[in-house]
């Protein structure tokens, strides 16, 4: 997997924005970046989980089913490394073009995992090492999506879903939803890369 990451690693986006910012990159089968944009990030849920940890307080959040939960700090919060075949969390793709809201709790229309029409094979969601470049620190979250169906699939939305505890069990919680249109061709694949960066 590391070799694939090194192929897909995007060039530095020459934009300086202090603090935490997030970018999305999509690469094709040859590792060429075909889409690169600033994510809408970060949604309300991200700050709610961060607040739980910083304050040791409880905070409400909404899971991807739309239910309001009351969470608190937990060692599993923010977990993003979904295994292959798991379309409920990690990086997820969808087809909706509905406008993004700060309180979105799921994609508008998640593309299911599978090989049938309108389905994509979800690879594992992986996390790269931290790298420091000048006055910036960053890492990437990546996931490979393969279209084994017979027709192209048009993606319109990209999401980042983490796991959050509510005592028990773990819930899937959307922390970013960004509109971005690209095609996963029949028989082809696309690598979707979230870049989380901090600039001091």
């Amino acid at each position, binding site marked *: 997997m590391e070799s694939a990451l090194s192929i897909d690693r995007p060039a530095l986006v020459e934009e300086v924005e*202090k603090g935490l910012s997030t970018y999305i990159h999509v690469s094709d089968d040859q590792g060429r970046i075909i889409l690169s944009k600033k994510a809408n990030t970060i949604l309300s849920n991200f700050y709610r989980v961060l607040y739980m940890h910083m304050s040791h307080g409880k905070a409400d959040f909404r899971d991807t089913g739309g239910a309001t939960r009351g969470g608190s700090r937990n060692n599993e919060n923010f977990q993003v490394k979904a295994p292959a075949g798991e379309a409920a969390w990690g990086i997820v793709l969808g087809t909706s073009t509905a406008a993004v809201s700060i309180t979105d709790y799921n994609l508008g229309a998640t593309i299911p995992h599978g090989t049938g029409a309108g389905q994509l094979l979800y690879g594992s969601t992986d996390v790269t090492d931290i790298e420091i470049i000048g006055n910036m620190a960053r890492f990437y979250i990546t996931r490979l999506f393969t279209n084994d169906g017979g027709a192209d699939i048009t993606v319109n939305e990209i999401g980042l879903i983490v796991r959050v505890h509510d005592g028990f069990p773990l819930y899937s919680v959307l922390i970013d939803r960004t509109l971005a249109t690209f095609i996963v061709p029949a028989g082809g694949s696309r690598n979707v890369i979230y870049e989380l960066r901090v600039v001091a």
Partner: protein
Amino acid sequence: MITVRIESRNSKGEIVGLVETPAQSLVHNFLRVLRIQMNQAAASVQTTAGGWISQNRHDMNFTSTIGAGIIGRGIVVGTITTPVSISQATIFGRIPHGTVGGQLLYQAVTFVAPSDSTSVVTFQMSRLFLNRSTIPATISEVGIYSAVGGGTVMIDRTVLPSPVVVPAGGQVTIVYTFRGTLG
């Protein structure tokens, strides 16, 4: 987006100094701890003492709440204007807790829970510092020290655009606002 608001009052409670500035900002340890939680695996973080430790996912990671009198966690203040860089791990000239000249009484860190408006989510953390000495204190840098499972790391350091003076007998309130907006 994170902003820092510093409000200084004299012994009569009158505002004598007010600065609101973008935090300058999160430093490398913020991203390191976030990555540890997302990756659910151990990685290195740099403590406020300057050393490196291996830290795993932990329910204590990012802990920034603390009681009065403790200067090793929460919002901390200092006197040095050295510019911020991504790899910094400590406030350079931290003001001690105390009542003599050059010291401040650190009160407990408090939080305001997250709230959403149309396109913005915010939460706040704040700390009150009292100057019980007979000479003014000057604050030039502020930061956030957060506990992780095995130590303490600095996740933000901000050098103020202009120093804030806390009069003798006065106080200063520092408020960090974490603000998410659609971008």
